[in-house]
């Protein structure tokens, strides 16, 4: 309906190769960016920043990381939480032990640490696939969290294992209010999402997808499976590492190893499944869905309670949340295995074909 594609021809390959080839898409994207960078900072309340926007962005970044590994390269991983932990504690220690360390450099180095760990624990993927690989990433998850809790140096000998992330400060300007923290996270996530989009649409992205779809054929045309799989692990872990650092510094403030348990890996895996495997945009959809769902549930539960009159037993809220989570995963896998991203794409195609049927 909104699309006016007539006349948007491509005279050079560069034009045909852009992320958004249709002008209406570019306008739409610009509006979203404007809303994110300008509108929200003006109108959103502290609660919305702290409880919804910042976690949504951080989880999107982690979801992009996992999507690169599982969605694009086809390597199932349950170790996302661990890589985030490496990023969080890595950044903390870098800031702690090297004074004057700029925060952004700390995040990048923490990301690189996570990438290195990712490569080491990605080595089994060269020989095993499917469940077995998922099991080996479980080993990663347990082993790293065990290290973080057991090695006092990492948590700076804190008795309870809790660490307080340093303040975020760049060139003297402190990012400590919800709005500034939100902007800080938004900039990082936007830049890294763009880099991810560039990766998946260039040669390395195609190599990942080739390995995912038919690794035998990929090998025969000259794609080295080791290089492809390990880069996927490295890039994915880098993204999870930075997301972990943001998780500690910009979201929780103080964090402990128990924040990065297997449950977090599952949550991010759900985001990638519901959002859409093999789609950067899907990662954002998935993150938004999983972040907003509990909020929506609690509102509807309190609404039902006010209707029905008496309050439901206390623990009911969390168990309903679990049931809804589980049911939604199954629902999406049945109705649309490619998740919300596919539904979005179908919707766009329908609008482009309007008024004709899809």
């Amino acid at each position, binding site marked *: *309906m909104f*699309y*006016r*594609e*007539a*006349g*948007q*021809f*491509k*005279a*050079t*390959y560069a*034009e*045909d190769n852009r992320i958004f080839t249709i002008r209406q898409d570019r306008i739409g994207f610009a509006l979203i960016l404007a809303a994110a960078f300008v509108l929200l900072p003006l109108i959103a309340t502290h609660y919305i920043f702290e409880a919804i926007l910042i976690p949504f962005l951080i989880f999107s970044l982690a979801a992009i990381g996992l999507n690169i590994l599982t969605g694009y390269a086809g390597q199932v991983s349950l170790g996302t939480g661990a890589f985030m932990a490496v990023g969080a504690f890595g950044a903390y220690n870098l800031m702690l032990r090297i004074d004057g360390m700029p925060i952004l450099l700390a995040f990048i180095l923490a990301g690189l640490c996570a990438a290195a760990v990712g490569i080491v624990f990605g080595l089994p993927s060269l020989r095993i696939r499917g469940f077995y690989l998922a099991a080996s990433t479980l080993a990663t998850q347990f082993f790293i969290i065990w290290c973080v809790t057991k090695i006092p140096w990492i948590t700076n000998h804190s008795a309870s294992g809790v660490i307080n992330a340093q303040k975020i400060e760049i060139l003297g300007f402190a990012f400590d209010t919800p709005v500034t923290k939100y902007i800080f996270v938004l900039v990082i996530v936007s830049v890294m999402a763009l880099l991810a989009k560039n990766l998946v649409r260039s040669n390395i992205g195609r190599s990942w997808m080739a390995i995912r779809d038919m690794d035998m054929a990929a090998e025969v045309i000259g794609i080295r499976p080791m290089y492809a799989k390990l880069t996927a692990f490295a890039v994915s872990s880098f993204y999870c590492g930075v997301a972990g650092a943001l998780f500690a510094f910009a979201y929780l403030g103080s964090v402990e190893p128990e924040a990065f348990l297997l449950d977090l890996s599952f949550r991010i895996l759900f985001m990638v499944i519901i959002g859409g495997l093999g789609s950067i945009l899907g990662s954002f959809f998935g993150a938004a869905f999983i972040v907003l769902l509990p909020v929506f549930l609690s509102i509807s539960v309190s609404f039902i309670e006010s209707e029905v009159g008496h309050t439901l037993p206390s623990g009911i809220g969390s168990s309903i949340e679990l049931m809804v989570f589980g049911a939604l995963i199954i629902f999406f896998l049945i109705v649309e295995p490619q998740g919300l991203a596919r539904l979005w794409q179908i919707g766009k195609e329908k609008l482009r*074909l*309007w*008024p*004709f*049927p899809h």
Partner: protein
Amino acid sequence: MSEYAPHDTFPNLLLHHARVRPRHPAVREKDLGIWQTWTWSEVAEEIAALAGGLAKLGFKRGDNLAIVGDNRPRLYWSMCAAQILGGVPVPMYQDAVTQELIFVLQDAEIKFAVVEDQEQVDKLIEARASCPLLSQILYDDPRGLRHYDEPFLHSIDEVQEAGRGHLREHPDFIAQEIAAGKGSDIAIMLYTSGTTGKPKGVCMTHAALLAAARGSCGFDRLDADEEVLSYLPMAWVGDNLFSYAQAMVAGFTVNCPESGDTVMTDLREIGPTFYFAPPRIFENLLTQVMIRMEDASALKRRVFSYFMEVARRCGAEILDGKPVRLADRLLYALGNFLIYGPLRNVLGMSRVRIAYTAGAAIGPDLFRFYRSIGINLKQLYGSTETCAYVCLQKDREIRLDTVGAPAPGVEVKIAANGEVLVKSAAMFEGYYKRPDATAETIDQDGYFHTGDAGYFDPDGQLKIIDRAKDVGQLANGALYAPNYIENKLKFFQYIREAVAFGNGRDQVCAFVNIDMGAVGNWAERRNIPYSGYTDLAQKPEVYELVRECIEQANAELAQDPMLADSQVRRFLILHKELDPDDDELTRTRKVRRGFVADKYRVLIDALYSERRSQFIETQVKFEDGRSGVVSAELAICDARSFAPQAAKQAA
């Protein structure tokens, strides 16, 4: 920039644009996935190189250059290259069989030919046996030609390279050649499709073509930023005026589609601002729209038909700027956002400022449909000899059943027998080597006999009713205009072709060809099984459907006092589609009435007898050249006619 450069020949205009707007895109072609673009300066260099190459091969002033192939930049460039050297380009229909090519090659004494690809090269090689003069053939697309080592065969690239060498040796060769050219030289020769006897070569001078092009550009205020998609045969005068002459005058961009079957997607990609097509294409488009909408969801269909009703009510009036109720205007605006805008976009016509239809009469409903959804469609009447247009419809003064008032600088009068006579600066010079035929059509005081019958209605707009020679009289002396009746029947989406008979008889009967797509879809919706065209054509339900259409047409005919008597009384549906390959239609799909009348004599007699059905067996030529036989028992059916009302005010 409404005034245009005053140069007198096309090569001069080429140099003008190369100088005035060197980096403005002149030509684009969809190739290798993107639209390859050439600016005016690049086009001038390419054409100069080609001209140099042709001269090196011995192309001299006054020679004719045959051009055969789809719309390709390099074929348009060879036109201009020939004109630079004082030669005359002769574009021909790319889907013509070798026999048809041979006639023109001999008639125009062709020595040089520029063709598109292997398919055309093979035809010309086959034709060389009977055209000894044909000594040089240049080809554009080398695919498949690697092993052709004939001496007379050259790729255009080689010729251009040789040409660039030639120009280095004679730097002012091109300037001299262009200077030698003048406005009165013949700029192009187009062979009419010859509904009447053998095709004749219509010669048009630079001056005539430029006068026509400047007239139409000025009339519609075309400027250098227009985008035009050129996909119609280069041998049709319309393509030459709209894609070549007007581009040279206004300096806008001509876009060549990737191939014949990607025209629709290329149309949508380019989104032309100036669009022209014969009525048949507009008809097919409308049928496609209706068929696809039938598959849409119920809600979408309801919204679509509701707003189509709104458009039918006030769309055309809004486009003409006439006063419309505010409520309707708001509704139409909403409709524009919901339905008409997207519909124009999906058809690729969002950016169309002006659309012309020409070459045959367009049905009023079809005409109204496009105008009502905001496409500024205008009808054009003219012929090859009058350089495509005689009358033009002014924006805001569009009448559905007339072709508009005579264009500026064109005098039109009606002869005694109702034939339309035209005199203008844009008229053709004469028929090539056929002074006799020229004298026949241009009388002493310089009027060209168009061969069409028509009359001026009260407010000075010309109304064309039929071919002059086809106009006859019924037994009771009433006017009988077969084309007018046939067009009325063809305006229904289910009828693709119709042939009326009645000259000198007491009542009018007709053959009908159903539209396989529309009727097929209609039948599937009512799950009527059918195996093929012949089987579907004989279905009683289909006869019922066609009968309703004919009776509706009869009702409209009854309102026009002059034509009330020629309502169709009896009809039959032909068992095969009339086809140019069987010589039943011309290349531009006009019915060859005489030929059809002889071939189906037995059916005509059956129509005028009391028979309820008639067996028929005919030779058919299939696509791959094999010929076979199609036969069927054709039912004959009566159609209700209406008493002629008093001269009711036309709708």
